[in-house]
């Protein structure tokens, strides 16, 4: 986690104070450089890899963060706080698109179609193919290290929903990534089930 950079004597709080007190661009750029790469990667994964959308969300995240900095009490780390904003902004993005990622109960989504080998080996591509709700929970739990309770709180879902989405996401990911030969359908080259629905 990129919290207070060892390369700079200034802490996140020093930089944030400079932004709040005088709108210091240099301090903002330093904060931005420390935290953006991780937050941007998280946003991209949650929305399924669309770069332009992730950039728009990232901009909204920083605008919200700088606006709210005077109210930030530093009870959590800056990184945790910013992650919370990023998750909320991603939810706003879903909302604007009318997406309801945690209402997807389509069991067909659990079964993978045959993907080209190169794509099957690409974990990021496989992640991007997951339905949004499952992808988000998997990213937050297995990659970002949040607990089910934290995920439930952040996403406004039940703990059980977080667990079931993760269970389904892992199953889908394994189905994607397992060698086609072991599934017995590689020879035909035909999908063995309905196309994997990509939702946002």
């Amino acid at each position: 986690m990129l919290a207070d950079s060892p390369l700079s004597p200034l802490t996140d709080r020093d930089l944030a104070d400079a932004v709040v007190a005088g709108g210091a661009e240099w301090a903002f750029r330093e904060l931005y450089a420390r935290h953006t790469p991780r937050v941007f990667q998280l946003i991209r994964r949650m929305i399924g890899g669309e770069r332009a959308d992730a950039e728009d969300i990232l901009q909204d995240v920083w605008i919200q963060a700088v606006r709210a900095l005077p109210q930030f009490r530093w009870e959590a780390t800056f990184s945790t706080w910013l992650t919370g904003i990023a998750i909320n902004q991603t939810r706003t993005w879903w909302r604007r698109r009318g997406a309801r990622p945690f209402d997807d109960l389509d069991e067909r989504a659990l079964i993978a179609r045959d993907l080209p080998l190169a794509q099957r080996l690409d974990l990021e591509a496989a992640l991007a193919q997951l339905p949004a709700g499952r992808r988000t929970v998997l990213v937050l739990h297995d990659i970002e290290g949040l607990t089910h309770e934290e995920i439930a709180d952040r996403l406004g879902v039940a703990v059980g929903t977080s667990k079931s989405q993760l269970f389904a996401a892992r199953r889908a990911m394994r189905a994607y990534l397992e060698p086609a030969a072991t599934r017995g359908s590689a020879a035909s080259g035909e999908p063995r089930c309905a196309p994997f629905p990509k939702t946002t």
Partner: protein
Amino acid sequence: MRTIPEDDMNDADRAAYAGLAHAQDPGRAVEDRIVLALKDRGLLYGGRPGHGAMWWVRLAAACLVLFGGGVALGEYHGERRGEQRLAGARGTDVLEAAMFVQQTGSAYVEAVARFSEISASGRDTAHAQQGREVAVSVMEAAATELHQVAPDDPVTARLLDAIAAGRVGNPQRSAPIVRRVIY
């Protein structure tokens, strides 16, 4: 009831996810775009070439003109909207503003309770529907404002999600409320 396994992550999963990058730099162009967006909103200053002393003098003069205009406009509206409301809206310190939120919030809750009591009789369903929509719109506008203050707050986000979900299938109510001042 179906039981969900607590953790079915295996070593292969762990190895695969551990190899994923945790960071990705969006590039300098995105950084500059965001800095510019923050400057346009008055949240950042400095670093823009060509802003000499004269530029700041002009900016100060423009601010004075805007401020004067704002005061005049505020007084004009104040006369029309009543002394009490204006006094609340003028609150400059946090405590005063918080008290104003409490007072108007209590008034809102009281009004909704009264509306609920009357509409429960089921006599005027058309106006009852309208009243419900107004109550939800005001709540949404308040949640949107709160989201500005605490953008990481999951409760506010959940409320906005729930309101948005309630609109599904009702296109007449689908216009998003971005920012609205309610008098």
